């Protein structure tokens, strides 16, 4: 009996081989993994794990904690005011924060924030930065940095339409409600309360005591298309559904801007381009791989501890996400009022482009009724006229659950689960997607962005945090309740100004 076995199996193999030739091609294998996981380090900080004692002590007037846009903007501002006695401590191997980026043999690509709306005349700080970077010139906005046409498209009822406001099969009722919504928004815009940065315009408002979904109901705006569209905006900017976002914040998304050119401003690596350009100038102040694990007052100074160095600073600019404060800073104000949305970002390498009818991908490609936010094409801003490989950055805000439940789901599921979920989602609009994708890298962000719930914006808790603790200044954009480039830059610059004032006063 034993002797027959090999024969049997070889016959099976033979038949298998013969039949394999006839079965349709199976899906190609997809490489990839989770990348840049930061939760292990975050959990060490939360659990107050033991850290090595530093071997050296350094006295320095200003320490900036956190190398995202807020921290880099603080550094940018100190530098241009001629103040160079400071360091910027970044816990990751690369600065960038929510503007971090990656690069492969095809193109650079973003890992999170990927555009800045074209600033209007009043956005002085942003305009100053963009003038310095050559984005804004005497002749206007440099065309190469304005998002190329076609900018957006939506997959709806089995086809792609231009723009993401649902238009295919919209009824007169839908269109009437779009119009009414736009009129209401125009009124808010004219009111001057919805500004960027928000601090300059925000006033106590009943709109902060109702959710965006509730406000739509109050206005009798019940068109399913309009509600989907508003929900999409809330998921995109706040990682939450319209019923979890303050109407003030929901309206801010639509009413805060009046761009002077068709934008937004974007780059292959997203806002990573700005970080790159800032680092080219500021790199000498940046200490990457510096995990700040304790900040405490010591006399008139602040002690800032990393595993390598103990810094003794006259002023500290805390530009890291504010929810970290209670774990790091002695005597930090309570942060329980801050809620953050969990996100997942995936970069998909496509070594073949999916078949398209019509004009092909836009920059931002959105699927109607998908839990995801769709994908952005990294090569869209390429000047080349022939592109046969690309990278798509796929965004998914886990908005349906509570933040805690979303974070649990984010960490519990393995890479294969998310890979399948992503390919199934994209497969609805691109049936041949599995033949095109060779790699999917996934970034999990447990606290991707601040979630401005009902009552948050105008709450005392938020305003207390936006203040200072002695010579420690909070600078993260989460203090604005809006996870925006402009807010981060504004908070960073403002904190830098206050630090300079403090030092000058001594």
């Amino acid at each position: 009996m034993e002797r027959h076995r090999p024969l049997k199996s070889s016959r099976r193999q033979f038949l298998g081989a013969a039949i394999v030739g006839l079965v349709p091609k199976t899906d190609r294998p997809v490489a990839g993994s989770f990348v840049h996981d930061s939760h292990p380090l975050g959990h060490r900080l939360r659990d107050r794990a033991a850290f090595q004692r530093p071997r050296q002590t350094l006295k320095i007037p200003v320490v900036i904690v956190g190398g995202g846009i807020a921290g880099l903007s603080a550094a940018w501002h100190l530098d241009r005011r001629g103040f160079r006695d400071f360091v910027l401590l970044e816990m990751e191997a690369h600065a960038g924060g929510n503007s971090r980026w990656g690069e492969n043999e095809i193109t650079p690509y973003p890992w999170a924030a990927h555009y800045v709306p074209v600033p209007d005349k009043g956005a002085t700080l942003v305009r100053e930065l963009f003038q310095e970077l050559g984005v804004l010139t005497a002749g206007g906005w440099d065309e190469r940095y304005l998002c190329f046409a076609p900018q957006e498209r939506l997959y709806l009822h089995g086809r792609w339409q231009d723009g993401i406001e649902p238009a295919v099969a919209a009824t007169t009722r839908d269109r009437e409600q779009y119009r009414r919504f736009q009129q209401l928004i125009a009124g808010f815009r004219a009111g001057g309360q919805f500004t960027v940065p928000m601090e300059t315009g925000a006033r106590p408002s009943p709109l902060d005591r109702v959710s965006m979904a509730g406000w739509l109901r109050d206005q009798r705006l019940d068109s399913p298309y309009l509600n989907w569209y508003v929900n999409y905006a809330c998921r995109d900017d706040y990682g939450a559904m319209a019923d979890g976002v303050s109407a003030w914040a929901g309206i801010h998304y639509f009413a805060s801007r009046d761009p002077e050119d068709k934008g937004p401003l974007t780059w292959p690596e997203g806002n990573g381009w700005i970080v790159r350009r800032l680092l080219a100038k500021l790199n000498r102040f940046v200490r990457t791989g510096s995990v700040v694990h304790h900040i405490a007052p010591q006399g008139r100074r602040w002690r800032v501890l990393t595993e390598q160095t103990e810094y003794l600073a006259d002023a500290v600019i805390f530009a890291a996400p504010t929810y970290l404060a209670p774990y790091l800073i002695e005597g930090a104000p309570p942060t329980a009022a801050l809620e953050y949305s969990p996100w997942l970002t995936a970069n998909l390498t496509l070594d073949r482009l999916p078949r398209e009818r019509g004009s092909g991908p836009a920059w931002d490609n959105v699927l109607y009724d998908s839990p995801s936010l769709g994908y952005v094409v990294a090569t869209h801003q390429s000047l080349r006229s022939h592109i046969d490989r690309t990278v798509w950055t796929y965004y998914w805000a886990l908005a349906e659950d509570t933040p805690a439940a979303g974070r649990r789901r984010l960490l519990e599921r393995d890479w294969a689960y998310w890979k399948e979920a992503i390919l199934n989602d994209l497969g609805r609009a691109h049936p041949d997607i599995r033949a095109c994708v060779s790699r999917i890298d996934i970034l999990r962000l447990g606290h991707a962005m601040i979630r401005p719930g009902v009552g948050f914006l105008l709450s005392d808790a938020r305003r207390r945090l936006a203040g200072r603790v002695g010579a420690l200044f909070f600078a993260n954009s989460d203090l604005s309740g809006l996870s925006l480039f402009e807010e981060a830059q504004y908070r960073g610059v403002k904190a830098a100004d206050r630090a300079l004032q403090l030092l000058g006063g001594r």
Partner: protein
Amino acid sequence: MTFVLFLSVFLIAACGLIYELIAGTLASYLLGDSVLQFSTVIGSYLFAMGIGSGLSRFLTRGLVARFISIELLVGLVGGFSSALLFLAFAYTQAFRLLLYVLVLAIGVLVGLEIPLLMRILKDRFRFRDLVAHVLTFDYLGALGASLLFPVLLVPHLGLVRSAMLFGLINAGVALWSTFLFRDQLGPIAPLRLACLAVLALLAAGMAEAPRITAAAEDNIYADEVIFARDTRFQRIVLTRWKDDLRLFLSSHLQFSSRDEYRYHEALVHPGLAALSFARRVLVLGGGDGLAVREVLKYPGVESVTLVDLDPEMTRLFSTNPVLVELNAGALASPRVRIINQDAFPWLESTSDVFDFAVLDFPDPTSFSLAKLYTTAFYRLLGRHLSRQGMAVVQSTSPLFARQSYWCIVETLKQAGFRTWPYHVYVPSFGEWGFVLAGSAPYEPPSRLPDGLKFLSARNLPELFQFPNDMLPVQAEPNRLNNQVLVRYYEREWSAIAR
């Protein structure tokens, strides 16, 4: 038993007629002149059947085995006939030869079938009944086939798969006969194996049929295809009809050798002849070397930089004897430097400055091509022109795509150029437009290189006159973030395309 036998007759008759119809249809579809094609195909087919019937008297032994082999052969040859013909038309010059070889081969085999079958059956029926029944079912089969063909087969299965389906029926009849005539056969196993093999081949053919048709139909152009290749960037096809050579890139006509001199003389000379100081010339696009040929007529030009994305294009136009004759060996000139790169990033990366630039890109049919017609691109170009330098832009048709044409003019103006629009009639394209752009003043040249076939100093100023139906219309400038040109172009050309 009797019924089953005559059903076979019915089926093989149907198969025979189907192959004939397919050959006739394919020939008229691909060659045109359906009366001629159908007459000659039917004539030679019937004639071949006669030959087959005549030859049947030489078959004396093992009639059933012979009949089965003939069925299998008909199934194979007939079943694959239309796939073979499609591919032969697309990839070879032997379509007609193959057509008649196949028609004759199938005809001879089909001609053998009925006499053989009658002789096999002769002992089972009275002669009178046999002849009557066989011929009745034969003609009935023909009727069935001729009704099925236009109503069901062509619309639903297509020519390639219809032929294969009937090949399967032929092979099926062969397999079935090994059971029907078991007592009149020797060893049966090899015959049945052969039947199964033919059935499997045809079934595989059925499965692959869509790919075959796609491969073949991609290749069908009106004229004889003398070269076809898929490169990384596009599909290059060259066709010839008599002395007319035509180049298609991804099925868009680029030139016809009969009138390309009008296009290329008009593209180069109005600008370059006016710049007596020109030493360095840039040609963007135009990997066919025809614009370069015109540029090389100026002895003062020291260097020509040709930037074309596709290395296959420049290789083909440097090596193929017919094409090298057409561009007068321009690409082999020591004055010419060839760069195979995407034009926009290349221009960004170079610091070279030119006295004259020729922009000979494909029409702005897509968002990616129209990047080369934007204010951003023209501004960049401006930084690579010498102070007195000029550029000329091929700008689609001011007649068929009037707003597109004036959009390109407006875009150049927005990018800071002064413009001098002009147009010319090229028979294979129609009215065609160009724009000269520069920052210094321009006067049409009074002297042109010798030996031009179309342009003369006398008719040149007329090119700058636009008749009423091509006069300027309002158009937005084309910018990277609006790409209005793509929308103008799509709307205008789809309005006139049929």
